[in-house]
């Protein structure tokens, strides 16, 4: 029997398998940030052990950082202390840090790929659930907790139970106005926020093959929102082309050698998955969420489910509670509903292509007076590119505010928050209660759908603007 892509990489990284227990899995690259690392550094210090392989860990500051005046000291004292502690810990333990002010600084899942740190065939972890993003390169990448960060510090390994495998095949051409964010929101709505728990997902099929690397990252990024341990896509020419020439990519002979290895990274034709799902790309509409988990999504021009039609009592209660929080009605359509905020950013959709797409749509248009629009590039590199391509002028003319790199309103740990009771169309990945600020109401959508709402001030079907 053939092997899946996942198995090929997994098997190569198992140091040993504990009988009736997890495997000791070797980690090639470890990314850290200020929020989930301090207790892990403290942990190894208390044990009196050094970092086992400090060169394989790379740090950045992203979750807490302000997105204006980054050259000034951070005003919030606790945030400042956390960022300072990261600086101290990295220098003490010999970890490379791309902190505030560094040209490589940015959201951890944006900088890994853009610097060429993320490469096919690797195992990667980070104390952050959206580490699944890196799977777009044919990488086993997943989020871990702080105890596991400490494990990697101590041994460059984590203990992992092998997940089951799922393949999601998407075939055919996408409708106009439908982008990769819609694909993943559609999948999650179809299988629910827990539909892939216990699985590692491989996305395959002609639709996936046709996507750019950045579009693929958006899909893998949200794998965790359906409970999956991670998501991955087999590397191909698009992948190799993207990695080539980036600062940390292999060069010369090393590149040729790696390329030969990478070309073996695919699921064999006779590989068997524990679960398989088929999707026709043509049936995917522009999506939007109405509830408080990413699985509660509908076509932007569709209707919220009618409560009386839901037979599962648990689900009914769930949606009822979500609608109450969101201030929305069972059976209603969202089209034409006013929104007060538009947030374009986060590790899901803050890369240059996302911003180019938005710029192409808003060029020559102006935002509605009723909305505040914030664009937060994923990294310093993206911000630089925005400037170089003159996109910042387009945004400024449209009345969009462009900020400095960081997680920002994705989780509202800094000042970028949505006020209680107000609606925000967000390109981020989570619409949980209070995620963007206490009482904030988040509607997840693609950068295009978000930009459309910025222009009209209401939830809009993007297909009517293009």
């Amino acid at each position, binding site marked *: 029997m053939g092997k899946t892509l996942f198995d090929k990489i997994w098997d190569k990284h198992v140091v040993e398998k504990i009988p009736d227990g997890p495997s*000791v899995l070797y980690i090639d690259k470890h990314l850290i940030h200020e929020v989930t690392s301090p207790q892990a550094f403290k942990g190894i210090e208390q044990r009196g052990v050094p970092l086992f392989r400090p060169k394989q860990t790379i740090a950045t500051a992203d979750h807490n950082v302000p997105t204006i005046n980054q050259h000034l000291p951070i005003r919030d004292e606790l945030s400042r202390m956390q960022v300072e502690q990261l600086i101290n810990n990295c220098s003490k333990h010999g970890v490379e840090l791309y902190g505030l002010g560094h040209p490589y600084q940015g959201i951890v899942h944006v900088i890994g790929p853009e610097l060429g740190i993320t490469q096919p065939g690797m195992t990667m972890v980070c104390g952050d659930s959206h580490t699944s993003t890196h799977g777009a390169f044919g990488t086993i990448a997943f989020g871990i907790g702080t105890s596991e960060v400490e494990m990697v510090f101590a*041994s460059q390994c984590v203990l992992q139970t092998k997940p089951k495998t799922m393949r999601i095949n998407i075939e055919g051409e996408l409708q106009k106005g439908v982008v990769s964010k819609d694909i993943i929101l559609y999948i999650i709505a179809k299988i629910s926020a827990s539909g892939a728990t216990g699985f590692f997902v491989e996305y395959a099929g002609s639709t996936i093959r046709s996507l750019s690397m950045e579009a693929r990252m958006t899909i893998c990024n949200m794998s965790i929102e359906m409970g999956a341990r991670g998501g991955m896509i087999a590397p191909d020419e698009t992948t190799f082309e993207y990695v080539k020439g980036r600062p940390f990519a292999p060069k010369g002979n090393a590149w040729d050698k790696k390329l030969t290895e990478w070309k073996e990274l695919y699921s064999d034709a006779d590989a068997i998955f524990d679960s398989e799902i088929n999707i026709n790309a043509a049936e995917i509409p522009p999506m939007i969420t109405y509830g408080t*988990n990413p699985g509660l999504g509908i076509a932007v021009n569709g209707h919220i489910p009618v409560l009386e039609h839901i037979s599962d009592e648990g689900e009914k209660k769930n949606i009822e509670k979500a609608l109450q929080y969101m201030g929305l009605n069972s059976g209603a359509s969202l089209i034409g509903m006013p929104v007060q905020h538009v947030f374009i950013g986060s590790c899901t959709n803050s890369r240059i292509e996302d911003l180019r797409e938005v710029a192409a749509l808003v060029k020559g248009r102006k935002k509605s007076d009723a909305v505040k629009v914030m664009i937060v590039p994923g990294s310093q590199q993206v911000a630089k590119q925005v400037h170089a391509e003159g996109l910042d002028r387009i945004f400024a003319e449209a009345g969009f505010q462009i900020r400095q790199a960081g997680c920002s309103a994705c989780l509202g740990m800094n000042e970028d928050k949505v006020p209680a009771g107000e609606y925000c169309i967000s390109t981020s990945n989570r619409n949980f209660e209070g995620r963007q600020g206490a009482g904030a109401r988040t509607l997840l959508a693609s950068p295009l759908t978000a930009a459309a709402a910025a222009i009209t001030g209401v939830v809009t079907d993007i297909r009517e603007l293009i």
Partner: protein
Amino acid sequence: MKALQKIQSRFVPIPMENIDTDQIIPARFLKATTRDGFGKNLFRDWRYENDSEANPKTDFALNNPLYSGEILVAGKNFGCGSSREHAAWAILDYGFNAVVSSFFADIFKNNALNNGVLPVTVSESFLQKIFEQGNEATLSIDVESQTIRIDATGEQESFELNSYKKTCLLNGYDDIDFLLSRREAITKFEKESA
């Protein structure tokens, strides 16, 4: 990590599905650099009106004096969302040593086990039976035999736990000690796969 063998206790029911880690511990409390003191902010926004401890929401289980105990019982897909281990720390710090649900999100399950909080996965019907018990009812959880029992009715179910994790829990061992003992094998692995 402290050892965990048996728990017999009353429980606090939160019969909601998809309880995500942003609710268990909201992001604004993640700025701490130690593992302590998260319990007072457990379920912060479900517990208090306008973030004020002077205004507890009386309909929330943690504020209901009828409920107490070392066991939290919650609806399916508990702990989904962010990987923040702070969620497990908050649950432990508040005083819970086990969480019972019909389904746990993967990362939360690992995080809980790594802190000596036992995630007990039961069937949906058993979970509903627990929710039907009165506030005086107690549950007995036994790590060695991997069973959970509703004491009043004697109904019980067994739950999954691999033997490695079981040994860790019963003895209070942690994964890091284990991995540190394997550094030689890991170095050998690195040489062979280079």
